Structures are given as structure tokens and as C-alpha cells.
């Protein structure tokens, strides 16, 4: 197990997240894709902390904790917006949500 293999895993996860965000038509899945990308970034933070020359400050761990909190806030607000949009337009398909007017 080397640093580069962990990074490759996180890169793969990041790209799958990007794929989900780009390809799915459902608004929720764009959010999920973004969450996946954030998680991939977290893996990087943890990996760089773990593989850093010792002794090191656990900054990576701290940032990961904060990132999780921020992601949670983002998910809450994002999903609330999805529900509001659905109530208004009766759809969550992002193809049909292309107007600022409503």
C-alpha cells in the first residue's frame, strides 16, 4: 500500500462522482455526485496525513472532519432545494429545469 495507490482510488472515486453528476438526469444524483467528489477529496486529505513524514500535525484529519460537516450542510440545503423545486415544477429532471423564471 503506497500513497499513489490510495490517490488512484480517490481519483477513481472522484471521476465516478463526476460521472454521476454529469450523466444522471435526476437532480438528487447531481448532489450525490458532488458528495462523492467531496468524499474523494477527504480520502486525499487522510492519505496525505497518513503518509506524511512523522511527526506531523493531524491537519488532514481536521480538515476532513470539517469537510464532512460542510458536506452535511450542503446536502441538507441542496435536498431542501430539490424538494422545493419539485413542488414548484413537478419535476426533478434537470433537463427541464433550465429557466430562472418560474
Amino acid at each position, binding site marked *: 500500500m503506497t500513497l499513489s495507490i490510495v490517490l488512484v482510488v480517490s481519483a477513481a472515486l472522484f471521476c465516478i462522482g*463526476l460521472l454521476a*453528476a*454529469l*450523466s444522471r438526469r435526476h437532480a438528487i444524483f*447531481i448532489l450525490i455526485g458532488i458528495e462523492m467528489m467531496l468524499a474523494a477529496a477527504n480520502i486525499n486529505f487522510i492519505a496525505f496525513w497518513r503518509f506524511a513524514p512523522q511527526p506531523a500535525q493531524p491537519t488532514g484529519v481536521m480538515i476532513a472532519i470539517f469537510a464532512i460537516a460542510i458536506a452535511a450542510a450542503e446536502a441538507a440545503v441542496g435536498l431542501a432545494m430539490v424538494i422545493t423545486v419539485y413542488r414548484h415544477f413537478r419535476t426533478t429532471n*434537470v*433537463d427541464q*429545469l*433550465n*429557466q*430562472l423564471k418560474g
Partner: protein
Amino acid sequence: MNFWITNNVWLIPATPIVAALLILGFGKRTRLIAAVVAVLGQVVALTMSIFAFLPTLHAHGFRTVEDFTWFNFGDQQLRIGFVLDPLAAAMLLMITFVGLCIFVFSIGYMGKDKNFSRFFAYLSFFSGAMLGVIVANSLLLLFVFWELVGLASYLLIGFWIERPSAAAAAKKAFITTRIGDMGFFLGILWIYHKSGTLLFYEAGHGCLENVEVLGASATFIALLIFCGAVGKSGQFPLHVWLPDAMEGPTPVSALIHAATMVAAGVFLVARVYPIFSVGAINGITPSLTVVVWIGVVTGLMAALIAVAQCDIKRILAYSTVSQLGLMMVSLGVGGVAAGIMHLLAHGFFKALLFLGAGSVIHGLHHEQDIRKMGGLRKLMPITFATYAIGMMALSGVPFFFSGGWTKEEILQTTSHWPASRAPYYLLMFGVVLTALYMTRQIIYVFLGNRRAASEQAHESPGVMTLPLIVLAACAIALSIVLTPAWPWLEDYLTGHAAKFDASLLIQLTLLVSFVLVGIGVGLGVWMYRRAGETDPLQTKQPALFRFLENKMWIDEIYDRTVIALSALMARVSDWMDRHVWDGLVRGVGAIGQIVATLTTDADEGVINAGVDETTDGARGLGRVMSRLHSGQIQIYLGAVALGMLALLLFYAWLT
């Protein structure tokens, strides 16, 4: 003799703010509680101000400061604090006292308003913020309260939000003063850069105690700070908001736009006077010269405009602008004490005049045009008597009225200004004009025949006349401590012991000002003795009257220049946004789109070979065309990803 309050002056601004919060907390339905809490808060603040004032009487040069660290950032400390010195103590007393009178008056004036408690909450909030400006011992803290005062003023001018004109006036006041505050803020930053502290006094380390470190930049700093004062005190060229601010309820005009807030600019200049006088030769510095000339221009211009106004409150508003100009001149020529004395006296009699006007308006069922009034002397005797006292104080009738002494003092100081004699003569002209327009107003409103609006007039209730009487008594009583024979207030402010010298009562300059007022009043009586529905000046000099009535077209000039320019800028940036930036965005989107459709086509070509190709081609083309205008989030996201790739490629090419 030190009271406990001298070390806790922050309580004085805190009390009305707490009262405001309480009123808001009680909600809408409790009118009585709102009034009682507001007045009580003011009474407590007044009591504390008195106890803060007493110790300053006995020790000359008295000053207590309470500083503390607000927060640290890095190795920098941001310290703020509160100060109590004669200047602050006198202002505190004036503001709380006048404020109390106006609060009581408002109970009657606003009695039928449906947002009664909100009004008192705002008024209390304003009072607290204003007191905060007075006792702040740090430019930053002063600025914070300064902006809070601006906010309160905005809320109160626009109190009757259902009137479009009130909303517009509130916006105008807010934005115009903000222009000045921008300069003020820059000045604060500059002074912090130069001196490393924003405290005024801190045992020899405050920024006012080491003004020498500012060096040559002191002039610019002073001018930037003066920008703030110009905005707040309605000096030329930012005076345009003040007359419009009369859209607010009359007690507001009395409290904010006559007695206290507009005086904050003058107070500010007096507070940071050491910065203005850095490197003075004979008491002249470039910044002070600017102050003088701005004051002269403002004073004269506003007095001229006031002659041709017909709205009772607007006349008073321009008169306020003119008097503020006078105070600025006084500060500029070195008469700080004279300026502050006039400020204090002006606070009393201008509040009195505004409240009198409010009483008239209330009695006439919200009629404000003086040409429709007349003959109110019999119908509203108390209002008339008190208004006449206020008018004489403002005109500067000597001996018995506070305004007379202070004005005479200012004229005298100005006459000694070594730089030029011109301000002196111009101010003399201004005094004549003041007497003239006040005489005009009195004749129109109270004397002569009753006109249209006066038929239904009635005297105001006791809760409104009582403050008038109290303020009128003060306007007279204050003259005792202002006479040159026993210049107690001046000595109090400058820190000397007061001496009595009766010979100073009779002076040449006194005679001069007496003559000037006489000319003004006489001219007024002569011009307006037979005034009817139309103004005599209008019939004789229509062009001049129109010029003055339209406020010298300054608003229009601003409309054509400053506002037109910003509208043009807005239009240009709108055009840029529509055609340049949007085009760029669409271009980027189109690139992503092209890539996307290419891959789509390839994929479908492989999987569904042949059959659907032609239809897919047509549909793909249509899709390209339609998606170009989509505004879809995924395409933007894809563009971001492609941008990241492009960056990677760029780095690859670099290495």
C-alpha cells in the same frame, strides 16, 4: 467629586437601546407601555447625564477614559473605549434633555398613528446611537455609532413607508450620507495606518495626543474625515438630502434633522480638532480653510434658498443647513467653543421651532404650505408665543435670546480670522437673510388674515405644548450662561475659570449684530406686510424666486451629471454582461456541447448501426441548436471539468 457613572458612561447610550429592544419585544399592541418605556429610558439617560455632567464642572480640563481591548488579530490589538470630557458632557445633557422634550411631544403628535410603538422603538434606538457617538473614545466605535445613527435616520425618515416620497427621501438621505461616510472610513484607515491606534485618548498614546506623527498626511486625513461631517451635517455639496428628510414625522425632524444628528458632523470636527490643526500657522491650515469656505458657501446658499420656500418645515430645514454652515465657519476660524456653543443653543431653539411647526401642522390637519395659513396668533396662542421666542433666538436678537450671543460670538471670531475678511462680510449677509426669512414665516403663519387652512385650526393638547414651553424657557435661560459678560459655557468648554465682567455687555460688534437683525426684520416686515396667497418676491422678481424656489437647481444638476453618469455606467455594464460575458459563457458551453454531441453520435452510430442514423442526425442537430440555449447545470459542470483538463494539459506543456 466623582460619581460612579463617570467610569461607566457606556450606560448612557445603552439605556435607550435597551428601551428600544424592550419596546420591540412588547410588540405592537402595547402603546402605553411603549411610550412609558421610551420616556423612562430617556429620563434615566438624562439623570445619568446630569450626574456625568456634575463632576466636569469642578475640575477644569476634566477627562475620564475607559478603554478596553475589543479583540486581537495576530499581534494587533483593537482597542475601543468611552470618554467623558466637557464637550461630551455638555452634548449629552443637550441631547438627552431635548430628546426627552421631543419624546413627550411625540406622544401627542403620533397619538393616532398605528405604528406608535415602532416609532418609539426607533426613536429610542436613535437616541442611544447618538449618545454613543458622543461618548465614543475611538474613531472606529464612533464610526459604528455614526452608521447606526444613519440607519435610525433612514428608518425614521421612511417611517411612513406607505408614502412613496418618504421612501424616496429615506433612500436619498441614506445614500447621500454614505458618500461622505466612504471618505470618513478611508480617513479612519489612513489614520490607523499612520498612528497605529484609533483611540482618541489613552494616557498619551491616543491618536489625538500624538497628532505630530501624522505629518503631512494630516491635511488629507482631516479632509477625508470632514467628508463624513459634510455628509452628516448637510454641508454643500451633500446638503440635498436634508430638506427632503422632512418627509419624516415632525418630531423626527426636530430630534434628528435639527437638534442632534446633523450636529454630529460639527461635533466630529470639534472632537478631532487636533488633526485639523496640525502644523497650523496663525491658526490657519489648509484643511481648516476648506472647512471655512464650505461653511460659508453652505450658510449663504441655504439662507438664500430658505427665503423662497413655502413649506413650513423646508424653511426650517434650510435654516438648519445654514446654521450648520455657520458652525463650520466658526470651527474653521478657530472658534471651537463658539461653534459648540452655537450648536448647543441651536439644538434647543431649532427643536423648539420644529416642534412649534409640528404643533401648527397638527392643528391644521397636516397642512404644511405657509401660504395657506395665516392669523393663527389668536387660535394657537401658546404655539405662537413659543414660536416667536424660537424665531427671535434663531434670528439672533441680542440680550435675551441664546442665539443672539452665540451668533455674535461667531461673528466676532470670524472677524479676527487672519486669512480673509470675506467670510465675515458674507456671514453678516447671512444673518440678515436669517432674520428676513424668519420674519416672513412668522408673518405668513401667525399674523395677517386667516386663509384656507386656518379655519379648522385648534390649539394642541397639553402634552405637546408643555415641551414647547420648556424649550422656550431654555432658549431664553441659556442666554444667561452665554453672555460675554459671564461666558461660563465658553470657559467651561475651553477649561478656564469663569469671570464676571459687565463691561463686556456693551461692545461694538454687539451693536453691529443688533443692526443686522434689525435690518433683516425690518426688511421682512416691509416686504411681507401685505403678503397674500402669492409671494411678493415672486411678483417682483420672478426669475430670482424661481431660481431659489427650485433650490438653485442643485438636485437637477446632480440628476443630469452624477446620476446620469452612473446610469450610463450601469447601462454599459449591462450591455457588456449581455453581449460580451454571456457570449463567452455560451461559447464555453458550446465547446462542451460539441464534444458531447460528437461522442453521442459516435456511440449511437456503433450501437444502432444504420436504421436510426438519419433521424438521429436530424434530431442531434436540433438538440445541438436547442441545447445551446439551455442554461443547464450539467453542461456548466462539464465545462468546469474540461477546464480542469485544459489546465492539466497546460501544466504538461509547461513541464
